[in-house]
């Protein structure tokens, strides 16, 4: 395989990873309604099996996306260029933003809880989603800019 075709392959894989990450972040956000409903059912009446599966799937999906953000996916082991300095800097910037946004959101929920009666358990999945979607989208955006 020639140098240029290898580089083309790499670019394709990188572009695909960025797109996949953005799509996964949007999918995770779109799960929110169902997860909130399932959380409420499970907490209030023990829940049906389908609610437990929904909540379980949300947690597994969140963990998988978290791992994807932290490692850059399986292919970055095969292609070291998928995890070069620029990618690492972008990832660090994305994680920093995700961390700050999530901490500030949690402090916001805490203050709101003191001022008004609030069902905090409803906001916990939202916090998890924020904590994972924000760095995923930021990483995807930074990588796209780098392209």
């Amino acid at each position, binding site marked *: 395989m020639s140098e240029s075709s290898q580089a083309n392959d790499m670019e394709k894989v990188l572009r695909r990873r960025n797109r996949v990450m953005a799509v996964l972040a949007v999918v995770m956000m779109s799960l929110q309604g169902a997860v909130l409903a399932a959380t409420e059912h499970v907490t209030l009446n023990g829940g049906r099996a389908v609610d437990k599966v929904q909540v379980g799937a949300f947690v597994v999906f969140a963990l998988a996306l978290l791992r994807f953000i*932290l490692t850059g996916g399986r292919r970055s082991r095969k292609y070291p260029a998928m995890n070069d300095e620029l990618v690492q800097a972008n990832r660090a910037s994305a994680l920093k933003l995700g961390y700050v946004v*999530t*901490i500030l959101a949690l402090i916001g929920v805490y203050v709101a809880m003191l001022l008004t009666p609030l069902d*905090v*358990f409803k906001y916990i999945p939202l916090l998890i989603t924020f*904590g994972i979607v924000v760095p995923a989208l930021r990483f995807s955006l930074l990588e796209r800019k780098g392209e």
Partner: protein
Amino acid sequence: MSEPSKSFDVEYEIKRRRKGLFVIAIVFTSMLGGVIAATDDIASHGVRAIDVFRIGAFIIIALGVLIFVLTGGPRAFRHPAMNDELVRANRAKALRLGYVVFVLSTMAIYVSSLFVAVDFSEVLPVLITVGIAVPTLSFAILEQNGEK
């Protein structure tokens, strides 16, 4: 000021910052008991000035520590060597660890709240403390390792 004394100054400031980070993390964690008690008091007896003061102080310190960890403190603007590549790499590592620990502990709380009754007035300050103390300590430890 001559060159050697300048570099000594920066080293001294970096060491001071590292010690400060340790102290701040410990002080911040030690506030937790008082904050949980104040949150409980607000829930049971309504809002009293002393509880508002305690919780307000906790939140202000939390935000202050967060800004300190993110920027490296006000002196980092004056001495660029206090914010060099190694410091930035250490900070990125610390924030990454803080982020992962924070998200995972939030998930753990979420899953356990589905099976057992969780008192969120106690859990939220713990989560905030974990989320801020972990990267602070981690940054201080990484900086200490860099000095050796």
